[in-house]
């Protein structure tokens, strides 16, 4: 009897899965999901590992090189193909087909397609996000300016930013952050340009339309003086400036809604609107996926967790807590209404003209090169044209190498 008990205890030995991701703000919701999963699956434990965004990809690549990837982790569009094409991820098609909990049709086609490589599905979509114009109501009220709305154009934004800037008191109209997804990626497309073309053969970063989109930001810093300088934004991050009332406007994504809702300064003072119109309207859309490492010791258990992460229950938790927009279209309203003081509908209203976050086999790499080239232009050391030319050269080199 005792032997039997001992045997059964050994058979039920706990499997511990490691789940790695980068957004600390999402940790509470994910903890909730993990506990719900563990309750339904005794014998499996999920260990959560948060690596800050700044270190995430280096960390992951080092782990991958050592065949030491966490069992399950987040992946995004620019980095997906690097991992998929090098056999780092577990293909999920068979298990997906047999699943009673989820099916690939549950998710928006565009999102699922991002995480499909050469006909095999490697990632289960988790969420999607767009970018919004966050603004500080208190600062707008004090200056007597009307809040941003759907009618706003680039000129409206520039005018307001200039009016809201009070350099003597270290308050600026907007933080011109150097960031592809939440910054210039949007304005480049709003000016009618593009970052890379659809078949990833060419980059348009040095073309006149893209240059205009880039100049939107450097103009705010150097011409209109309505933004802190690159040096100032390095000393103190734009998001910190926004959260202490030093900038009145800030472009950032829907994923920060929960952060601003929890922050004691921003929770009652800020709101969000759709991005202003340039020559056209455009906004970067992106979505993350959960993937399983090819070297995982527990593929069955890992799949069970990924399946659960992609299920209605997990999506509901993500939406209700206001954490992120779930990859289940019928639940997006839950998210929109989860933080009533913010106009979260603004993120959904832009879906019609959304442009996908550029991806290619080595997108993570050339996107870093692009930022490296633009840093001196943001700092005012070189002209945008020069920086863009250099960026175009370097990006093209990488794109060409992908095709070989």
């Amino acid at each position, binding site marked *: 009897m005792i032997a039997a008990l001992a045997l059964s205890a050994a058979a039920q030995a706990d499997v511990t899965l490691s789940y790695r991701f980068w957004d600390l703000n999402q940790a509470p919701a994910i903890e909730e999901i993990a506990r719900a999963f563990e309750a339904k699956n005794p014998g499996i434990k999920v260990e959560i590992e948060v690596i800050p965004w700044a270190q995430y990809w*280096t960390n992951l*690549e080092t782990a*991958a*090189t050592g065949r030491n990837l966490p069992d399950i982790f987040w992946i995004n569009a620019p980095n997906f193909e690097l991992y998929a094409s*090098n056999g780092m991820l577990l293909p999920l098609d068979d298990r997906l087909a047999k699943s009673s909990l989820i099916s690939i049709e549950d998710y928006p086609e565009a999102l699922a397609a991002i995480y499909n490589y050469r006909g095999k599905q490697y990632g289960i979509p988790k969420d999607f996000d767009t970018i919004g114009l966050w603004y500080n109501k208190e600062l707008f009220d004090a200056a007597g300016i009307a809040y941003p709305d759907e009618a706003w154009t680039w000129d409206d934004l520039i005018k307001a930013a200039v009016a809201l800037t009070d350099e003597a008191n270290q308050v600026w109209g907007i933080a011109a952050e*150097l960031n592809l997804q939440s910054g210039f990626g949007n304005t480049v497309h709003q000016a009618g340009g593009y970052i890379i073309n659809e078949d990833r053969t060419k980059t348009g970063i040095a073309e006149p339309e893209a240059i205009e989109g880039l100049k939107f930001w450097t103009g705010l810093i150097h011409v209109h003086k309505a933004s802190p300088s690159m*040096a100032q934004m390095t*000393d*103190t991050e734009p998001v910190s400036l926004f959260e202490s009332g030093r900038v009145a406007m800030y472009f950032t994504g829907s994923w920060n809604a929960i952060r601003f809702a929890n922050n004691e300064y921003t929770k009652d003072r800020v709101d969000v609107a759709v991005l202003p119109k340039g020559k056209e309207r455009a906004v970067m859309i992106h979505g993350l996926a959960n993937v399983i490492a090819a070297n995982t010791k527990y593929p069955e258990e890992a799949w069970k967790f990924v399946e659960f992460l992609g299920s209605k229950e997990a999506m509901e938790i993500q939406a209700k807590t206001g954490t992120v927009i779930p990859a289940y279209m019928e639940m997006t309203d839950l998210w929109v209404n989860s933080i009533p003081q913010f106009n979260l509908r603004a993120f959904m209203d832009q879906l019609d003209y959304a442009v996908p976050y550029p991806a290619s086999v080595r997108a993570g790499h050339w996107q870093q090169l692009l930022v490296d080239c633009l840093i001196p232009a943001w700092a005012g050391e070189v002209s945008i044209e020069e920086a863009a030319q250099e960026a175009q050269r370097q990006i093209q080199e990488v794109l060409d190498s992908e095709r070989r």
Partner: protein
Amino acid sequence: MSGINKKKLQDWFWAYLMILPTLAGTLIFSIWPLIQSFYLAFTKWGAFGSYEWGGTVNFERMLGDTVLWQSLRNTIVYTVGSVPAGIALSIVVAALLNTKIRGMSTYRTLYFLPVVTMPVAVAMVWRWLYNADFGLLNHMLRSVGIEGPRWLTDPKYAMLSLIIVSVWSSIGYNMVIFLSGLQGISKQYYEAADIDGASAFVQFFRITLPLLTPTIFFVTVTSLISAFQVFELIFTMIGINSPVIRHTQSIVFYFYRQAFVNMDKGYASAIALLLFAIIMAVTIVQFRLQRRWVHYE
């Protein structure tokens, strides 16, 4: 006769046994890696750690890599800026502490505090002090009417800022070594000088410093080597996306970027070998020069 042989064998047995762990560890984790580094410097790396023979491609790249040479220049500026100043200040503090004053151990503790503080934490605090808009340094300067510079984001000042932190955190360490060195100087010299009527100043320069030169030599060699390898300060205070990274990047930081951010371990190995050669050369030069200025009793 056979007894002696047996004793010798027994001796040898114990000797080898007692050095075995250290020897094995050194061979496996230092000597073999060094050899492999030489090999890796000639390899080309692809995604996720796959590599192949690349010939001299890394060294050719090194010749044309202006960023590398700039980081070498940065490292030299940093070393020249922080080592002499740090040593001079440590000697002064040690000398002051060596006069029979009360509270000597309290001072010693306070000056040593930065040494026991993790470099990452030191860098973090100073990063906050140096913050151009909200940091304490510029606040204090503003209160006396000076508009302080952008310590960490202005290329003209960034290196100076790093040097200041380096000196600040190393004074305590070297001070302790110099104190010990000072206490090793025989009192007789000072007594004789007192009788001759020499002032404290003269005594310091004619007796103390010359007799301290062996310690100064040791501290110089170690400080130079460690300054050349500066990494944490730049990693924490500057960071890859800072506008001044090109102006402050040290050679070890560049090495780290190539090896573990850009994942090009072949090129990074070549850089490591370059660093090795430079440090070797500098140390050899120092040893040669010591005859000129170091007084051994």
